[in-house]
């Protein structure tokens, strides 16, 4: 028998997600039961107290994210997890977290919609809601795992991005990724990078909770640390006091934008396979990328020059990468489990440079490798 590999386990995606969260330092979870994310609440109800962390089941998803924001403001890394209907309810406080610049992680395990839809079936129909779900202008960060190991790694990364940029980060999963079990070898805790929010170095009387600085990210004191400041969902000045002055409003809105758009290289990750000589690309994220990876290999066995573009961060959209790679392409096939959402983003960047073709499925089943392969043969 082979010697046992350290940290090798059979693990469900939902568990890997919360294990990654705990490894990142998450010590607070507030949530509301909803299929297919419920396992995360159940696991953390048992696990967090072992780490002296806290779990609470709230009265709804609105309250859940409110409690998460409250806990984060008090200095504890915090998260919640939900699915479509709950994610819709959370939009109010996702907006609050953007405006008040509160780090927190929200997991959306996608299921079929709209409305109650298909509680136990897979979909990728929240793709655009993640970007545009709450009202107002804002810049979303969302990571999209496609395997159990990625559930672990990307949730950990979501916390790091959230702390680094003082912004909510969404982990966009789906029913299959959340519920499947895979053999994983977890990274050694000593090898992992954990980022904590930047703390102020100035004395309290100089402290500005929303300080304007060249990095666009302000240091963040927690409640009870001697920095007494105001937080509000109203548009505010650098001290956190409501403002209606046009120059202060613009400054705040630019700060929210710039802290993301000036750090795209740090935030955006794309998995590109067989793209060196490809003239056809499959563009797919999450669980669909798994079918695409197999289909690309099927096509390569038949000497079709096709590659895979898998955005690992679905938002911000990888504009720059696409601008660059589409120069070599004749065709981009966008495969997604909805009626065609991400294709709009691909076409926005594409501006007619290549053919863009849509492969969609929204009948509760996965897009299969055969389907992707047939699409390649049809379109090439």
């Amino acid at each position, binding site marked *: 028998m082979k010697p046992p590999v350290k940290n090798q386990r059979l693990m469900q995606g939902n568990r890997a997600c919360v294990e990654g969260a705990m490894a990142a330092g998450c010590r607070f979870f507030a949530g509301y039961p909803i299929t297919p994310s419920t396992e995360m609440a159940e696991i953390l109800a048992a696990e967090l107290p072992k780490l002296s962390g806290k779990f609470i089941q709230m009265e709804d998803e609105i309250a859940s994210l409110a409690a998460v924001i409250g806990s984060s403001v008090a200095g504890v890394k915090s998260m919640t997890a939900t699915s479509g209907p709950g994610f819709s309810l959370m939009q109010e406080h996702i907006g609050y977290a953007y405006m008040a610049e509160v780090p927190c992680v929200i997991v959306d395990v996608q299921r079929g919609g709209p409305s109650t839809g298909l509680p136990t079936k897979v979909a990728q129909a929240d793709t655009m809601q993640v970007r545009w779900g709450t009202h107002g202008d804002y810049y979303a960060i969302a990571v999209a795992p496609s395997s159990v190991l990625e559930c672990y790694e990307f949730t950990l990364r979501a916390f790091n991005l959230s702390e680094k940029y003082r912004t909510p980060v969404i982990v966009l999963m789906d029913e299959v990724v959340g519920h499947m079990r895979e*053999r994983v070898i977890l990274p050694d805790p000593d090898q992992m990078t954990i980022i904590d929010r930047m703390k102020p170095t100035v004395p309290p009387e100089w402290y500005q909770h929303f300080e304007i600085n060249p990095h666009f990210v302000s240091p963040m004191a927690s409640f009870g640390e001697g920095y007494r400041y105001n937080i509000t969902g109203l548009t505010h000045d650098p001290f956190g006091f409501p403002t209606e002055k046009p120059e202060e409003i613009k400054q705040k809105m630019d700060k929210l934008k710039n802290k993301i758009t000036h750090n795209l290289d740090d935030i955006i990750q794309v998995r590109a396979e067989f793209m060196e000589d490809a003239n056809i690309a499959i563009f797919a994220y999450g669980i669909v990328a*798994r079918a695409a990876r197999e289909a690309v*290999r*099927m096509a390569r066995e038949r000497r079709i020059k096709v590659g895979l573009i898998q955005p690992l961060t679905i938002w911000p959209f990888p504009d720059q990468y696409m601008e660059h790679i589409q120069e070599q392409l004749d065709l981009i096939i966008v495969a997604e489990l909805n009626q065609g959402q991400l294709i709009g983003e691909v076409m926005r960047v594409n501006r007619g440079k290549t053919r863009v073709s849509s492969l969609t499925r929204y009948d509760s089943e996965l897009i299969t*490798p055969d389907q992707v392969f047939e699409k390649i043969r049809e379109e090439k």
Partner: protein
Amino acid sequence: MERIKKTRAGQERYEVRLSGSGGQGMVFAGMILAEAVGVEDGKYVCQTQSYGPEARGGTSRSDLVISSQEIFYPKPQELDLLLAMTQESCDIYFPALRENGTLIVDSGLVTQLPDRKVYGFTFTRIAREQLGTPMVANIVALGTISALTKIVSRQGLLEVLKRRAPRGTEERNLQAIEIGYELVRKKKAKVVKSDTGVG
């Protein structure tokens, strides 16, 4: 190990479905098998399950994809092995089995067999008679799967059951694996083709 097919992507891949009705422990058996294959035998494995209204009323199933290489598509496309513990699950899932795939049924419960080679064992009856409860029929079936196909090691199954079986039932579960092996060794299987009738 049984001959492993190559997919059209050139990937090695073996696909298993354990099916029955809710309460027959198909999801638990799938987890045990996946952990034995993945953690003990050190192969890539991906396990998914049917989930939803179907799992409560009619059929319940657990699917595994096993490979020595990284698994891309996580769900079965053409089954290499189907375990059917009820007539209904056999009827529903048999068409998903590839032409020369292995069909194993609980022959006490599945009497209408498809027109092909079938391994039949009376898992439920044997579990009740030899271990005092039909609850471990699923584990007896895992023993026979291991013995027949070598897709999972016997030692791997035993190790996983030692830590995963509900407290107080470990010994019974380990015996269930041995009984599963015994069934194959003593050729107690009714290897039948349905055109000759169910014996």
